[in-house]
Each structure stands twice: as structure tokens, then as C-alpha cells.
């Protein structure tokens, strides 16, 4: 327990990632699905920063910044879509959106 181990961060990231995956798969509300996606992105960021710190390189941080920026864009667009869906269907329950059922 002296040193920080890389694995700690990576495993943390893995846990966060899997929780996010669970959230994506199990949540009915579209907004909550988007939130879970944020969790996933954060897990990725943790990985990036951890590897950057391991190698003493700033590339990890840079990448993490870009990811943050993209996550923001994605949430904006995603929520716009959810709003559109809400306007059309009066509901954001994903269970009701099964037009692809075959």
C-alpha cells in the first residue's frame, strides 16, 4: 500500500465503465441513458489520465480534454433529440419506441 498502482485507476475505470453499461442497458428513461453514457466517458477519461501520469506524458490529459469537449457536444445533441421525441410522442419511455420490432 505504499505506492499508487496503475491497476487501481484502471480497475476504477472498469467499474465505472460497467456501471455505465448497466445503466445504458437497464434504464427506461432516455435522459437517464444519456447520464449513463456520461459515466462511461468519465471512465475512459480516468484511464487516459492514469496512463498519461504513468508515462509522464501530457498526451493523456490532452485527450481527456478532447473527450470532455466531445461529451458536451454529444449531450447537447442527444438532449435535443430526446426533446424532439418527447414532443412527438409525449413520452421518453424507451420501451414505447419499438418501431423496429420485427
Amino acid at each position, binding site marked *: 500500500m505504499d505506492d499508487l498502482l496503475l491497476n487501481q485507476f484502471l480497475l476504477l475505470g472498469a467499474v465505472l465503465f460497467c456501471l455505465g*453499461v448497466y445503466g445504458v*442497458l437497464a434504464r427506461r428513461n432516455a435522459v437517464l441513458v444519456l447520464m449513463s453514457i456520461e459515466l462511461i466517458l468519465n471512465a475512459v477519461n480516468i484511464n487516459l489520465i492514469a496512463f498519461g501520469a504513468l508515462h509522464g506524458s501530457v498526451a493523456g490529459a490532452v485527450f481527456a480534454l478532447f473527450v470532455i469537449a466531445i461529451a458536451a457536444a454529444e449531450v447537447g445533441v442527444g438532449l435535443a433529440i430526446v426533446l424532439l421525441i418527447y414532443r412527438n410522442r409525449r413520452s421518453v419511455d*424507451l*420501451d414505447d*419506441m*419499438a*418501431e*423496429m*420490432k*420485427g
Partner: protein
Amino acid sequence: MFFLEHAYLIPLIPTASFFLILFFGKRMPKKGAEIGIAALAICFAMALATNVQWRDHVNKAEHRAEEQYQLTHTEAGAEAGAEEHIEFDVEPIHESWTWWSSGNVEFSAGMLLDGPGVMMLFVVTLISLLVHVYSTDYVGGDRRYTHYFAFLSLFSASMLGLVMSESTLQLLTCWELVGLCSFALIGHWWEEKPNSDAALKAFITNRVGDVGLICGVIILFFGAGQTFDILTINQMAVSGDISHLVLLVASCSLMAAVMSKSGQFILHTWLPDAMAGPTPVSALIHAATMVVAGIYLVARLYGVFFEGFSIGTSSVNPLAVIGAVTVIGGAGLAFVQNDIKKVLAYSTVSQLGYMAMALGVGAWTAALFHLFTHAMFKAGLFLGSGSVAHSVHSFDMKEDMGGMRKFMPKTFVTFTICTLALIGIVPLAGFWSKDEILAGAEQLGGPGGYKAFLVVGLIGAFMTAAYMTRCWYLTFWGEPRGHAADEEHPPHESGPSIVVPLYILSGMSMLAGFANLPNTRFLSWVPDGIAVRFEHYYEPKGEYFPAVLGSFSHPDFNIGIALVSTVIGALGIALAAGWYFKDLGPHGITRRSKAARIGHQVLVQKYYLDWLYTDVIVAAVKGPIARGAYWFNQKALDGVVDGAATTAVRTGRFVYDKIDQSIVDTLVDGSGAAAEGSGQGLRRIQTGRVQQYAALLFAATAVLAGVFIIVI
């Protein structure tokens, strides 16, 4: 010795004429008759020459033997030797050509000529020639005139071949050939069913006997050490090289053939029916020549019969018994016939019985001499009856004849002479020959002898006289009836072609008896050179004839028997004449007495033998066989066919139901259902819910990653 050595030409000439008539007869001016007559004339001339040369042959052998005797007995006393009859052997003319050989058995054909053969040559060619001439008038204008003459030639060739056979196989072949010709000639007018029926009856009845002949030939073949040679068989039989049992069995077997061909009881039934053929055919085949083939067979193989039946030392044997039965049976049936030819047919049966009986008691020469004389007078009788029938166009004595002596005097005279010869009135031919038979029955044989057969012979003589007188009366005496009474076309005497043969035959009937005059004290005035000529020349002398045996003897002339038989014959004539000429006796007895009616019925139904053969034996055999064949056809054959069809149908149905419907269709439907089911199952994945798709995606990723990272 030309004719003796080349006697085999004699059967070949009619064979050639048979083929010539078949091929060229229709184009000849006389439709082939001239070929036949010419051929038979040549044959008769050759037969005469053969007989003359045979006589020389025998004389030479006798002289040689006398010289030998003189040489060896000069010291002993030549005088005593001169009185004795010196035994000498006469060598038969024997030519043999190998037909084919298989293994170590030779099948040969050829010529064996000795006494009986030479005599038969004379008889057959003479009667055949006379019949040929007779036929030119009798069957003139017939629809199958040419074929008739062709078959006459073939028959003559076959009969001549038979009498000259040197092997039992050749004899068998010629036997069958004469049977074939008999069939063809009996059924000459086969358009009428009774004629073809009679021909078939003759052939098939003869077939029954032929089985015996074939078996006998085979038995003798093996018994004599695998040879068919008649000379060898006889020699071995006489010298005792063949066991008695084999000879007995062979004799019994050959008896069947004799019974069928020579009309002995019980296979005689075909002979009267054979009268359906033209009268010349009846005269030639069924009186003079073919029916004596059986008698000739016995005479030829006499060594076998003599030893097999122990003829010399016993007092009864099958041959004599059957002959005796035939004598009485045939004579009895002759009394109730209205057809003149049927009377003569039964008379032939009866006389053949005499010949068989003679052979049975051991009087060989008597039998052959009777054969010789019988041929002459019986042929004369038949041709005479044909002459009468030709002018009244019917054979029925009671219906269409009567008083014919006024219309046909020549026929009347010849018929009378032949009748007297048949009855056995001295000095006609029948007397001498029948008498020798009776003497043989009296003298020959073992303990007690064959005296019973003497009685039979005398009774037969009586009956012969009676029925022949009846026939003679009904035909030539009394008032004309039916066609004979036709005012418009009264019957007239026949032409020369018919009458001349009648003359010749009646002349022979008168003279033939003198061929075998016995040498007794009553006739001692007859010089030695003429007496017993027949026996002297025609009886075989050699190791192959049982005359060398001690048990064989020649009957002596017995004046007592001669007188008795003459008296009995006269008695028969007298009684029958009284019945018919003077209406004496119990006329109409069959109406009054039931016994007489029954007896008459039995005779009319020919002792019910025909009924026995046709309705009992044949029906019993063919009924079950026919029913069995029908059952087999319906149940077995049809069953198989139907069964095959049913099986096929059932198989088809089974295949359809079980295999096609159940299995194949199940497979096909099943695959369809499986596809549909799996489709339905897989359809559940397409829920339309994105999160589920995402779940699947992630799960797959996890699995793949796991595989790649952990496993690999």
C-alpha cells in the same frame, strides 16, 4: 445267290416308290398307281427269285451235311444212315451295317434272312401286288387316290423291312412304321368322324402294346449282354446263356405287343373298328400281313418264348391261353355282326388266336403254315366282300345284300372256295394248316400236354363253320334286299381288276395246303421230295432255333383228329345251313328267353370291353387328372398370379401410407415446420428495443474479448 444276298433291295424299292408317288404321282397318267404296281411287281418277282434261291441254299446245306455224314460214317453202315433224316444247319443270310455306335453298344440295321423271312417276303409281296391291282378299280376316282397308293407302298416297304429285320431295334422301327401306315390308311376317309376315331383307336390300342414291345426289347438287350442282334439273342436263349427269369419277363412283355398288334384278347378291340378303312386296306393290312406281325415276332424270337414259357415241357402258358381265349371270343362275336367286313374281322381275330395258340403249344411250323394259308383265303374273302360291297354300295348284309350269287357269280365262286378253305374242308388249304395246329395241341407239351387247347381248337372250328355259313348265306342266298333289290341299277359283277385277284387268291387257297403235306402212311404215296416241304425249307435249322432242344418236337399227322375236325366242320355248316336255308332251330329265341337276350346283348356289346376301356379305365384316369389340372390352374396358378397382384397392391398401399405419407411427408413438412419454428424463435430477437440490441452488442463484445484475451 444274288437275290439272297441282295434281298435288302426288296424293302427299298417300295420306299423309293413311296417318295416317287408323293412327288410325281399326281402328274402321272394313272395318278401314281402305276408306280406302285410296278414297284410291287418287281418286288414280287424278286421275292420269288429269293424263294428259289433259298431253296437252293437249303439243298446245298443238306448235301453238304450228307457228304459229311457219309465221310464220317462209311464204316458204320451207310444203309442205316441213308434212311435217317440227317440234321443239318442252314446258315441264315445275315448282313448288318452299323447305324451308329455309342460307347460300346452298336446300333445296327440290316438283313436277317432265313426260312420265315423268305416265306413272308413271298406272302407280303403277293398280297400287296394283288391289293394294288384291286385298288385301281375299288378306290378309283377317290379324293386321295395318289396318297392312298403312296401309303400302300410305304406299308409294303415297312412290312418287308420288318420281316427282314436283323436287330430288335430295326424290328421295332418297322413295327411302328406299319402302325403308322395302318393309322393313315384306316383313316383314309377321315372327313367322317367314325373313320378318324377308328384310326385313332387302332393307333392308341397298338401303343399300349408297344410299351410291352419296348420293354421286351430293352430286357432282351440287357439279358443278352447289350446286343440287339436277333440271331445272338436267339442263340443265347436256346443255349441257356440268358436266365430263365429274364426270358420269362421278356416273353410276358412282348406278349403285350403280340396282343395289341395281332388282335389277341383283350387288346383286339381296334381290329373290327379298323374296317372303317377301304376294303383293300383291310385285306392287306388287317387280314394278311400287318396283324400277323405279332405272330411273326413270336416266330422270330421263338428261342426266347420257347425257353421263357417253357413251351416244350409244360401244359399251359400265357401265349396258348390267350390264343385259345381269342379263338372262342372272336368266333362268338362274329355271330352277331351284320356288317360283312366285321364278320371277317372277327374271323381274323379268331384265326390269329389259332396261330398264337399254335405257337403257344410248340407247333411252330403249324403256326407259320397257318399264317401262310390264312393270308391267302382271308385276303380272298375280304376282296370278295369288297367286290360285293362295291356293287351294292353297302356292307350291311341284312339290309342291302342277299341273293348276290345271281348277280355276281364269279365273286360267289371265289368267296365260296375261300370260305371252305377257312372252315377247313379237305383238300383246301385251311384243312392242312388247322389240322397241324390241332395235332400239335394233342401231341406236344409236357405232362398232360396241351389237350385242353385241342378242345378249344375243335370248338373254334365248329363256330368258324357256323358263322361263315351264316355270312355266306346272308350275302349270296335268299331274296335281294335294299340296294341289292334296286330295279333301276341292279348289282353287277365287278371288273377284271377286282375279279382276277380273287381268282388268284382262291387258287392259292386251293393249292397252298399242299405245300406242307405231312408224311404219314395215308399219304405215303407222296414222294419224299414233296412232303413237308414247308417245314423242310422254312423252319430254321441252326443253333438259334429251339428245334435243337430235346423238348421240341414236330407233331405227326393224326388221322383221327383230321376226321374229327372235318366232321365238326361239316356239322357246323349243316347246323347253320339248317337255321338259314330251312329255318330250322329256335328262331326268335332272343325275344322269348331272357338268358338268350342277355347273351346276345353281351355279344353285341363286344363283351363290354369297349365300355370298360373308354368309360371305366380312361374316364377314371382322365377325370381325376383333368380335375386336378383344373384345380391346379384355378387355385395354384391363378392363386400365384392373383397373389402377386394383391401383394403388389398391398405393397403399393403400404408404401403410400407408411412411407410416403408418414415418413417422407413428415420429413418434408418437418423441415418446413423447423424452418418456420426457428424463424419464429429467432424473431423474438427483433424486439425493436434499442437497449436490447445494445445489450446484445455488449454481451457479444464481452464474449469475444473474453475469448481473445483469456483463451488466446
